[in-house]
């Protein structure tokens, strides 16, 4: 996925000379997880601006570039550091077009990876997408694979609205067939990752793979799960979720963020509002436990896996 993101950015930067990258360690170093490899060499220090450590202002400068007609991609090294940039993103980027009555657009993309299960501890393991979902004016993108990452990032850049693009460090290495061609994927449309008739698993980002594993295992016993990869949380494809639930009658929502007030609650309640009459069992959530994330082996007691998804499906089927 790292390569796919790199390609998407390279492609767009070639196409649109106004695009600028801001961040720390994004120069020769290529980004703290290597996503920007080669971009500095190709586009130079003006457009690939490796800067001092100050996330709050870096994002603010990005807003200024964006409203000046220069689409800007700001990298935050870990999603956990969103705390520092949240004023620029939530109080400025998300709202500026609105409170200025449409006089400006804010083509700002904030890229940040979820970096969990690595053992880096409580300040380097969080999934904060729900905060961004709760901020009107933003798009929130959570790809689960390389092809989607590329297509969604291209779409987000061209779309021209403030976007939080959330990657996943565990998926960086994954190489999948990526469209050679320039192939934007429309925002707000989920992808049916596996079709099924008995239960719907709605998930995204790092939980898509474990969900597919669980689905494969259950299929061997004749339980056919439909796995929805939501791809974008804002816009959220509520209709797509409800359509699947109307078919299967059961919903399991799976994510790696902590459970309480996570994206899963919104996804579940969307199905409640749009498909209540079809629900044959309570909607189940699979999520991290409501704890700060520990290091070491204790992590395994906090994060969910394929077995948890499987168990939730079984509960729903019971």
């Amino acid at each position, binding site marked *: 996925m790292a390569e796919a993101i790199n390609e998407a950015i390279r492609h767009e930067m070639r196409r649109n000379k106004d695009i600028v990258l801001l961040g720390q360690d994004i120069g020769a170093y290529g980004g703290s997880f290597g996503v920007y490899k080669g971009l500095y060499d190709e586009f130079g220090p003006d457009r690939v601006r490796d800067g001092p450590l100050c996330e709050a*202002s870096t994002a603010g400068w990005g807003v200024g570039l964006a409203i000046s007609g220069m689409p800007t991609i700001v990298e935050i090294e870990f999603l956990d550091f969103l705390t520092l940039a949240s004023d*620029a993103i939530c109080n400025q980027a998300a709202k500026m077009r609105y409170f200025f009555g449409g006089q400006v657009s804010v083509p700002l993309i904030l890229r940040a990876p979820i970096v969990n299960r690595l053992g880096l501890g409580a300040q380097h393991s969080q999934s904060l997408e729900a905060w961004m979902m709760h901020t*009107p004016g933003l798009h929130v993108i959570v790809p689960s694979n390389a092809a989607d990452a590329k297509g969604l990032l291209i779409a987000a850049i061209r779309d021209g609205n403030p976007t939080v693009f959330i990657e996943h460090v565990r998926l960086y290495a994954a190489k999948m067939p990526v469209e050679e061609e320039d192939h934007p994927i429309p925002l707000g449309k989920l992808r049916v990752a596996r079709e099924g008739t008995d239960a719907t698993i709605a998930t995204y980002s790092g939980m898509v793979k474990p969900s597919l594993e669980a689905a494969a295992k259950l299929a061997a016993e004749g339980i056919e799960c439909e796995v929805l990869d939501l791809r974008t949380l804002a816009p959220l494809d509520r209709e797509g979720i409800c359509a699947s639930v109307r078919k299967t009658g059961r919903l399991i929502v799976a994510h790696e963020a902590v459970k309480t007030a996570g994206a899963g609650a919104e996804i579940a309640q969307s199905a409640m509002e749009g498909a209540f009459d079809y629900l044959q069992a309570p909607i189940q959530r699979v999520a991290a436990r409501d704890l700060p994330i520990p290091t070491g082996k204790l992590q395994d007691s906090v994060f969910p896996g394929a077995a948890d998804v499987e168990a939730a499906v079984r509960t729903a089927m019971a």
Partner: protein
Amino acid sequence: MTTEPELKTLLGWYGQMWTIRYFEDNAIASFRQGLFTGSTHPCIGQEAIAVGAAAALEPADQVLATYRGHGHAIAKGLEPRSLMAELLCKETGCCGGRGGSMHLCGVDKGFMGTNAIVAAHIPIAAGVALANQLKRNGRVVVVFFGDGATCEGAFFETLNMAVLWKIPLVLVCENNGFAISVPTRTAIPIENISQRADGFGLPGVTVDGNDPALVHGAVAEAVARARRGEGPTLIECKTVRWERHSAISAGKYANEEEAMKWKKADPIPRLEKVLLARGATEAQLQALREKAKAVNDEALAFAIASESPKPATVGDFVYA
């Protein structure tokens, strides 16, 4: 410093300062009459800064300011009518009535907007200036902010990067002695805010902010420096605030007298004396005052007569 401005120039500034003053008078009166809700943050007593600074700019240069930014908007060429309509949240307002008193904008005039989060617009202004640098369009950005804002991280972080990258940015601090109720001296342990510059390697100057010619001189020099590609300058303009932070502030000041001293430091009568000494007539001044008043009265009437935005449009302008 630059040369003394011509009388004609000074007369123009005088008229602008009155335009701003009357605008703010109308804003306060309108608020008191319930023509709009929320609050409004007058720049009365501080008009010389907006006017002196804007006079140092080309039309294509850009300005960003705070909630206390009505004067900067007017000085940058926005029409009082579209501003007053915005204060009254009417669809004819510069932001379609969505922004109100704290969110004004006029991109076509280079006025890139006011902001209600203290100091948040400073990095944004720097980003606009970086865009100018990258586009090599020769434009300079002036960002206005208060003394209080110079305690916020965003201000410092931006100074560091702006110096590093020689950004065409002029940072104008309006030190009006207070951040809401907090006197500058109990928030900032140095004599002059311009001294902040010393830790970052950029020039810092302090000027009397109630003299538009001094402000103009300092800003003109900083703008020239920025246009030469030599980077940012920090300018502190010492001034005195209108008695209250905003139209709704109600708290007690530790020292009420201190908080009321603006009337003694009013830049308008001060400029008037200079003008008369340089040969302007009372009649000339009166004509300028009357014109300023008329423009604002018309603006207010226009704003009052305008419609509120239709409820059905509430969802407009969220996404491009």
